[in-house]
């Protein structure tokens, strides 16, 4: 017998059970489907249960009393298994279809979710074809658990920068190709931001309802949009740098910072811009994108830092 057939039979049996049923009763019910040998049968049953649980199927197990004292009984409550009525209006279903066709999250999760919530017969013809605009969001296997913890107000624990963290999640933000978790880090009693892909290992989700998100919390507002504005511990004497950009590249900086950032326009078409440099490492990454077409004019400490960096690579005096 194919394992899929046996697992489907097991699922049907557990869904139909009016009370918790024991492994022996399951084995009797699914006559001949589990091996004769008890150890092998138990192992196969555990594997089947594992497949069902991995698929998110809630198997309720209890230790029974009475005649069956000490044995474990299993069942699946239909109310726990079945998706509730969502009753999407036609325009809502269409909008979700467009969203799923437009956004890629690197997995088939969205499409599988759509199949579940959008079972309506009437709208089959109203499906988007190939879409000419597609946005990709980064994916990380920990994100669903962080989202779940956020929704349930469960404290999450994980390792970040080699330190154990216990975090009350206040918000999840996708920005600039990365996902960030913002929340209250109980380990240091402060609001902290964590880049999700830099979390090491698994995320453990605690009990629901463990905290409240502060009123009016705005995940976008607490996290500066420009990484160069995130303060670090490097003091270069100012939070703003004057950077001379060659005429060939001024268009890029104007698109990023606008004309308000222009300090000086020179006759050759080059321009001096005010650029945030609170985070020197982020500033360096931005600056070196221009290679030889940009020059830090001020503050002097930042200019000296750039020179030292270049000399470290081999750009001798």
């Amino acid at each position, binding site marked *: 017998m194919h394992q899929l057939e046996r697992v489907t039979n097991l699922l049907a049996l557990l869904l139909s059970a009016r009370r918790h049923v024991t492994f022996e009763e399951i084995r009797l019910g699914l006559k001949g489907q589990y091996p004769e040998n008890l150890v092998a049968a138990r192992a196969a049953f555990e594997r089947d249960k594992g497949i069902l649980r991995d698929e998110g199927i809630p198997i309720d197990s209890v230790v029974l009393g009475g005649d069956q004292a000490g044995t474990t009984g299993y069942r699946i409550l239909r109310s726990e298994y079945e998706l509730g009525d969502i009753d999407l209006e036609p325009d809502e279903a269409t909008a979700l279809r467009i969203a799923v066709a437009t956004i890629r999250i690197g997995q088939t999760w969205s499409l599988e979710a759509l199949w579940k919530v959008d079972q309506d017969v009437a709208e089959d013809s109203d499906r988007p074809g190939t879409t000419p605009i597609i946005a990709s969001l980064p994916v990380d296997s920990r994100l669903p658990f962080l989202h779940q913890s956020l929704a349930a107000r469960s404290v999450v624990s994980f390792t970040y920068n080699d330190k154990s963290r216990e975090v009350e999640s206040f918000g999840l933000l996708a920005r600039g190709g990365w996902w960030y978790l913002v929340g209250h880090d109980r380990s240091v009693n402060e609001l902290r931001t964590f880049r999700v892909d830099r979390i090491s290992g698994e995320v453990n989700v605690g009990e629901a309802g463990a905290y409240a998100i502060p009123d009016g919390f705005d995940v*976008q507002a607490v996290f500066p949009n420009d990484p160069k504005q995130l303060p670090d511990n490097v003091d270069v004497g100012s939070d703003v740098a004057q950077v001379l950009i060659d005429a060939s590249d001024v268009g890029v900086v104007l698109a990023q910072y606008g004309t308000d950032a222009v300090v000086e326009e020179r006759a050759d078409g080059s321009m001096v811009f005010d650029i945030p440099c609170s985070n020197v490492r982020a500033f360096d990454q931005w600056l070196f994108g221009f290679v030889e077409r940009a020059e830090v004019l001020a503050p002097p400490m930042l200019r000296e830092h750039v020179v030292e960096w270049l000399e470290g690579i*081999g750009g001798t005096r």
Partner: protein
Amino acid sequence: MSRRGPRPVNVRLRRLLVMLPWLQERGTVSTAEMAAHFGMSVDDLIADLTLASLCGVSQDPRDLIDLWVDEDAVHFGIPKYFNKPLRLTAPEAFSLVASARAAQNLAGAEIGSALERAVAKVAHSMGIDDDNQLVVELEPPTAAKELAVAAAGRREVHLEYWTPARGESEERRIVPVEVFSEGEHWYARSLDLVVGEERTFRLDRIESFELTDTIHQVDLGPRREWFADETTHVTLEMDPSWMWVLEQYPGVRVDESRSSKRKSWVVVNVTVTNERWLQRLLLRLGSNARVISPNSWSSLAADTARDVRRRYSK
């Protein structure tokens, strides 16, 4: 010809549990339509449904899932077990909500409002009343929507495009086929009409553009993982604590089969689009990385640093 391996049991089960209630709603459906809806081959569909028709709490025909396949259609009889889909899993709920939130950045107000209501209903079905703390920022440049319109109609577009390698702009004639985001940037995958080949244009480098009414028949096939048009493979050795600089780029692989001559450094293979791209990367990595191959670029970092350093000698 490559042979596909057997489909995993969990994948087939997941699909069955969503297909059976869908089929129950419809009663009779053509196998071709059903296979297309669930993105599988007709053969795989028939194999899975035939197997499902043998399933139930016992082998008594009255207990089996009541469906049968004949000719080109599949029929569902009396509902017994899987009347509704399984509730959304954590990954499915996350993905659907995140997709909807992201799409709200791209959609018009009408669709945005419908999406908001849809997400609220989905969240409510999961027992979540407030899901506003998941935010997706996706700000397509103004060109994105118009170029998407051009892509949908395969319309020719004339544009002024700034090329960083040369630091100058030039006129291009293209037919966009797809507008997409990757990391923090937006791109238009296109047929370049001058060279007659596929080229990918970064939207923030388009200085101006104009849609024409000229329509072309263009099919460029699926997008490649790494969409630069010409690439070179470069091997670096580097301090692993600086890997974050490379995180934003596709085509980066740590080569664990090779060890670096420097203690605790790692060997990394990088896909490089052009010399200037590599110059930028090497400046960003500083003294924390070194080119191993190709030899022709082994002194590129020092040469580039020297050129840039010269500006600071004035």
